[in-house]
């Protein structure tokens, strides 16, 4: 196995995080499965949100997992890419909205 911080095979080992802290791990996975169950949002909507967030937090494992999951929820490629663009827009917007602070500061210290 090549040396890398990310190994695709490690995704399958996610449930094993209970090994070092069973109680907290189990609580997390109970919470996780309840979050993704059908509710006021459909399981498909939640999967698309997860796909977008996976890109925003740049989690390679989550991108693999929720690309498969959205396809298995019947999503198509356009829907998946639009979800990623939502993440990109928020990230880009988050950067740009901070430029107001830059402008404020620039104006404050400039003649």
């Amino acid at each position, binding site marked *: 196995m090549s040396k890398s911080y990310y190994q695709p095979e490690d995704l399958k080992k996610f449930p094993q995080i209970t090994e070092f802290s069973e109680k907290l791990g189990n609580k997390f996975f109970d919470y996780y499965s309840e979050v993704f169950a059908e509710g006021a949002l*459909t399981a*498909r909507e939640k999967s698309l949100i997860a796909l977008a967030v996976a890109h925003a937090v740049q989690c390679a494992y989550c991108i693999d997992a929720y690309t*498969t999951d959205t*396809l*298995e*929820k*019947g999503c*198509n*490629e356009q829907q998946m890419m639009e979800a990623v663009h939502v993440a990109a827009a928020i990230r880009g917007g988050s950067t740009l909205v901070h430029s107001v602070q830059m402008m404020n500061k620039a104006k404050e210290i400039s003649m």
Partner: protein
Amino acid sequence: MKNLKSLVSRGSELVHGATQLTHLGQATERLRGLPRFTEKLKSSSLSPFKPLQLEIFQINLGKMCNQTCRHCHVDAGPDRREIMTRETMQLCLDVLQNLPVKTVDLTGGAPEMNPNFRWFVEEITRQGKTVIDRCNLTILLAHEKYRDLPEFFARHRVKVVSSLPYYQKGFTDRQRGDGVFERSIRALKMLNEVGYGKEGTSLELDLVFNPNGAFLPAAQASLQNDFKRELKQLFDIEFNQLYAITNMPISRFLEYLVTSGNLEAYMEKLVQSYNPAAAPGVMCRNTLSISWDGKIFDCDFNQMLDLAVGCAKSRHLSQFNLAELSEREIQVDQHCFGCTAGSGSSCGGTLT
């Protein structure tokens, strides 16, 4: 999608059922380490695996087809010449005459390409049985001689079950060939025009969804809602039910899995998704499958793998013996995980 040829015409080693099963179960350490389907049946108290009452007689009229889909478990295509003769059809009719089954499910290839297709349908319906035609849709536009098939189907109250892997062109054409989506839509309109899929006609038009790759199908009810909404909005097309079917890891879909590097992960997914609630309802328990040359199999998949029915005294229509067949043990191997994964999968869609 580039023009695809059948595995047979390309001389692929995957034409042999035994080679395919070796790939599925033994090709790599990861595959060898997976639980066996027989163990899963035991854990579900389904061993020995026996049939229930026979309800469906599924007849494969041949491997000839006007399409060459990438996932085809039959390895069908225009270059295949194996089709059922009229003599073998007569054998089917003779057997059917004495069987309590109400449904005869015709598949292929493109069953309509068999020159005796219409005569066969007429003879089956004359026995008071319902005919299902597994229609690839584009056959209705493939030649002038097929254009009146919708009227023929309607006249004989044939239930039409048609593959349409998605309500958009991209997924459909990548799986089934360039231009297939557009021709499928035209064919669906032809079926709607004679009343198929329309409320109050009782002419049933069902669609079959299968995933466009190495993943499981979405929930059938949710997909059906999407298909109904989109096909109505985009093309004013109506249909009755949608069946979600899992891609079986054999034949050309197995080739795709091997060449794309997805075989191990897909088999792991099927095994991990084994659903004990789906297993008792798999179609091999209430169906018999007949090949173009009259042999008897547990299902169409076993037929393509040449897994002979576990009943030495009744392996061909000429020696058909329902009592013996009812006592047989169904032949299973690792491919069977395809029918028990997730919500389960059969020719009639999900099982749970």
